[in-house]
């Protein structure tokens, strides 16, 4: 299906033909909304044409700013004119905001609270275009102001897809620590006093709530997962497949050598009907695999194929027993 954007790009192409022109004519004539959509697209197209120089300069300034602060460590004066190429610049772009936080008070902050119950997911788009996917049993508050974007994750798990805005850092605060980002995608899980942060794209800085505020945060790059709390003396960083962590958004849970208790706890967030482990010997069984979240009966019957277990219905829900 050719849409307005495709038509603008096609008509802008050097090889557009008479056939293209007549197809375009027919497309416009087919429905009035086509012309309306095309006009909206053109408005943006022309705006970029008019603003090309300014936008280029803005982008060039940002690249220079990123390069400028690439060298110094925290607290050291910036040096001007130091240029780094390629990957170094991209990393530096993530650093800039962490370093140069404007301490100004937000002029008029807006607060929004989102919460999901057991078995619910929620997809939220914030005013800045950032997207949050809330997993089940999650509660968070988004505070947006002119100077900052702050999420307070009271409990639960969410994937954040953050739009880049160097003037407004994006922070996710939990009881165990704080995650600070520029434009990136990552998952934050804060349950039972344990914080897990998994990064799919970009770079984030995590600072433990108990750490000395002057200490350097831990920086995570794609594929890294940080765990904090839950009885650990200090934060642990592992390399993982981020897509496995993000899979819950697509109705899948991915496990690599996890105990059945963890799996059951996760499943119980996804379905109103609860699953209980009826035999303590099963607690320590470990699972590696993908669980598709359709309904608890199907999930448990598939689990029964993977593991030496059987499920029976009880008053409390499904009870898992040794086979």
């Amino acid at each position: 299906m050719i849409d307005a954007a495709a038509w603008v790009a096609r008509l802008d192409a050097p090889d557009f033909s008479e056939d293209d022109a007549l197809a375009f004519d027919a497309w416009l004539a087919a429905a009035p909304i086509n012309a309306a959509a095309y006009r909206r697209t053109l408005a943006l197209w022309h705006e970029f044409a008019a603003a090309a120089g300014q936008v280029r300069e803005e982008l060039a300034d940002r690249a220079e700013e990123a390069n400028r602060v690439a060298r110094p460590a925290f607290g050291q004066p910036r040096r001007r004119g130091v240029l780094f190429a390629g990957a170094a610049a991209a990393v530096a772009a993530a650093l800039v905001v962490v370093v140069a936080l404007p301490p100004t008070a937000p002029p008029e902050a807006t607060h929004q609270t989102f919460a999901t119950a057991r078995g619910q997911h929620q997809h939220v788009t914030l005013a800045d275009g950032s997207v949050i996917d809330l997993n089940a049993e999650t509660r968070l508050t988004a505070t947006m102001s002119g100077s900052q974007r702050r999420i307070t994750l009271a409990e639960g798990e969410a994937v954040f897809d953050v739009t880049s805005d160097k003037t407004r850092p994006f922070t996710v605060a939990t009881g165990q620590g704080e995650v600070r980002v520029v434009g990136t995608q990552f998952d934050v899980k804060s349950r039972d006093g344990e914080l897990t942060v998994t990064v799919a794209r970009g770079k984030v800085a995590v600072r433990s709530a108990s750490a000395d505020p002057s200490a350097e945060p831990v920086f995570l790059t794609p594929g890294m997962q940080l765990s904090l709390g839950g009885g650990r003396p200090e934060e642990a960083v592992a390399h993982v497949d981020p897509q496995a962590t993000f899979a819950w958004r697509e109705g899948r849970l991915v496990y690599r050598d996890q105990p059945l208790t963890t799996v059951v706890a996760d499943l119980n967030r996804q379905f109103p009907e609860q699953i209980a482990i009826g035999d303590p010997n099963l607690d320590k069984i470990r699972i590696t695999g993908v669980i598709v979240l359709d309904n608890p009966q199907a999930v448990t019957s598939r689990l029964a194929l993977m593991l030496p277990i059987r499920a029976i219905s009880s008053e409390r829900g499904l009870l898992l027993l040794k086979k």
Partner: protein
Amino acid sequence: MAPSGTPPTGAPKEADASPLTLAFLEKRESLLLFLAARTRSMAAAEDLVQELYLKVAAVGPETDVRAPAPLLYRMAANLLIDQVRSAQRDGRRNAEWRKETQITLGGEDIVAEPPADEQLIAKDRARQLADAVEALPPQMGRAFRLHKLEGRSQQETADLMKISRKMVEQHIAAAIRHLTQRLRS
């Protein structure tokens, strides 16, 4: 068919208009939108469609036009080609050229002026546009920057990125979709 735009000033009455002129009046808005993909503003497209009207009116009523629509679009496309040629003549459309191109006049270096239609937009808006461009996936963003911000043709962009011209077109279309969605407010 979408309603046609306001007929240009001095449009002949339908009675004495040639079939081609009537077809033009009926398709005026579509032709305008067609031209506008290649111009830098709606105003520039309006100028072109007016120019097209003059050419259409110059086609004598005795000319046998069996298929007016293809002819009209062909004439419009020719106008665009003329326009590209004139754009190449004064072709210093982008900031890079502005910064780096110097013209020597009477022994003195002068910096080329930005194109007259490159107006200043609000700083905030420029930031928003830059944010949106930065948020594009890398390849898409590169194609958009080269083509739309630096004023390179789709073919030049393809050569620089070592991808096909068709792929550039697809990147541009996808970029427009991303940008439209993000900047809609």
